[in-house]
């Protein structure tokens, strides 16, 4: 479980989808890293992502870790700018997703601001989830 200060330091990524862009090779990096995973350059500048992407794969989580409420849908999302990230899908009915053997694959998504979890101290952790377009 991440501590309160760790969450606070990650506010920029959690709230706004601000990553980095490599000034040497142009790769968009999210979440943040110190070096470019493609060319190892350290010349990176802040870059705001659009928050739009496409679902690559998804799964229904039925046994949730502490602070989360099951069932919910977690997906691998290919962002418009390139990076692949893990995100929660909200605003869909689990029953509808279960019925479709394809799940939510290839569906277009965009970010929405939601409550992510309740930590052990009763602090609400907010951040970005994804909604179907």
């Amino acid at each position: 479980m991440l501590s309160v200060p760790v969450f606070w330091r990650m506010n920029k990524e959690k709230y706004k989808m601000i990553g980095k862009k490599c000034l040497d090779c142009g790769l968009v990096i999210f979440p943040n890293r110190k070096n470019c995973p493609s060319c190892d350059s350290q010349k990176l500048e802040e870059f705001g992502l659009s928050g739009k992407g496409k679902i690559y794969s998804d799964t229904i989580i039925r046994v949730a870790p502490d602070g989360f409420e099951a069932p919910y849908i977690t997906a691998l999302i290919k962002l418009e700018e390139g990076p692949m990230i893990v995100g929660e899908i909200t605003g869909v009915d689990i029953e509808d997703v279960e019925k479709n053997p394809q799940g939510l694959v290839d569906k277009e998504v965009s970010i929405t601001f939601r409550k992510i979890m309740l930590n052990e101290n009763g602090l609400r952790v907010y951040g970005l989830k994804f909604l179907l377009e």
Partner: protein
Amino acid sequence: MDKTGIVGWGSYVPRFRIKIEEIARIWGRDALPILEGLGVDEKAIAGSDEDTITMSVEAGRTAILRAGINPVKISALFIGSESHPYAVNPSSTVVSEALGFSSAFGNTFKEKTIFMGDLEFACKAGSAGMQICHAFVKSNEIEYGMAIGADTAQGKPGDALEYTAGSGAAAFILGKDPVAELEGTYSFGTDTSDFWRNEGKKYPNHGARFTGEPAYFKHVTNATKGLMEKLSLGIDDFDKVVFHTPNAKFPLRAAKILGFDASKLKEGLVVPKIGNTYSGASLIGLASVLDSAKPGERILVTSYGSGSGSDSFSFMITNKILQAQKLGKKTIDYINNKKYVDYGTYVKLRGKLLRE
């Protein structure tokens, strides 16, 4: 003097709905007189991952999009709500951070001044935030300020309020070169306790029938009359009218008392489909009117907050609104995107909130 007023607006309504009939069924009540008495068919309920903070962020994002400004230019944020998620720990700091007011993009730790506050004055705290932001803008203290009214209202199970207490938010950016010029504002308040909630209590108490004449009608009509007198305007000068909506009947009766034609309330009267969104109510009504307002139209808005007070505003729509109306989700889009839930699911959604 430059014109000042609303430069961007946005609303948010969660997608869950419960029908009034379903609530009446659970309590063994005949639905028809309730439906007729309130004029409300269904109400919006926040999902388990939504609250005043998340709805404020969503409404605020649309307002920024329509204003077409960089959010770091916004230097004030006032959120009016009866359901700030924390008793101690502000909503405004989270919303400001999420909307990108605090640090300039590209300058991670560059601090700037942001005037912030979580406001409470029953259902009129959001409109009070608009008055504060407008005063900051007019005095050139800030370039832009955002006011939000948001609530995830709850009534005690089985209480009359349970039929209407809904969820939603609306956000407005105040600044120069507006889409809706704020021509003037007037407030009226007296010590009239018609509705209250004690510290640590989950649900409010109310004076039942007392909430009508000495409270809602007295304050809404006096504030509206005061505004018209202040600005030398009459009822015929207004094209659209928005009054606070504890239900669909009260605003129509207030209109009748003042002499406004009921048709002028139509665009702003969203309460039959989303319920009473408390601090969000008159502001979502205004957002709904702005979604389709035409340049040259004059709009009257009068909020009401128990305890009691009303803030009245006159807005003149400018040509700038046409461009902004093409952007972002409209209030009607949110109203139409809905999933009905039964009372059991409603309790589960609310129960999750209770556990916190």
